[in-house]
């Protein structure tokens, strides 16, 4: 069974600064995907970035990048040039091998961007 641990319940960052959110996971699967989702107050989960375990190169999406350490089972999210719109809950998730929609989520990190 997959498990995801997010050890930072809350974090804050000044606007335009950089922040890193931590995530560790455990799985017995050989192939899997890792995800970071953002959930603003509107409640809709929005995919921020994803990483396939077989790819060694860290994924990047504009201001968002990950540090994927497969051996350590670590998957942190770095947000550069933080913006007020980045304020939200951030969830780390891992996929089940049976399908992209079988996601196992962590408990989330509440990020607040301070003007």
């Amino acid at each position, binding site marked *: 069974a997959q498990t*995801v641990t997010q050890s930072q319940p809350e974090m804050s960052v000044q606007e335009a600064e950089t922040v890193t959110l931590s995530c560790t996971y455990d799985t017995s699967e050989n*192939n*899997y*995907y890792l995800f970071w*989702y953002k959930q603003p107050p*509107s*409640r*809709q*989960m*929005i*995919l921020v970035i*994803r990483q*396939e375990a077989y790819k060694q190169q860290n994924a990047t999406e504009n201001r968002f990048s990950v540090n994927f350490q497969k051996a350590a089972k670590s998957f942190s999210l770095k947000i550069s040039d933080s913006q007020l719109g980045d304020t939200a809950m951030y*969830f780390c*998730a891992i*996929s*089940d*091998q*049976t*399908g*992209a*929609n*079988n*996601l*196992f*989520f*962590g*408990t*989330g990190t509440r990020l607040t961007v301070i003007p």
Partner: protein
Amino acid sequence: DAGVTQSPTHLIKTRGQHVTLRCSPISGHKSVSWYQQVLGQGPQFIFQYYEKEERGRGNFPDRFSARQFPNYSSELNVNALLLGDSALYLCASSLGWNMNTEAFFGQGTRLTVV
């Protein structure tokens, strides 16, 4: 294009009652999954359906059931509601059912059991 739509947005039920939640996937998406998100927690996987067949089931009691219709919309049913069933229920759709396809979430149905 419309995203994943869920109805109703909010719902209040009494313990012991039955509830049906509905989800319409993005046009062309054939896979629908359901998640339960209790306040302060991450979403927990309940069911996945693809092409009207159940493809996955999370660790939930038999009071929870679901189905997918020929138009790929889906219903989640919960019988004999308990106070602990109070949560945000999220639906996600994707083109396929494997790891290579991105899941898109709806805004959820907030269920309160009193």
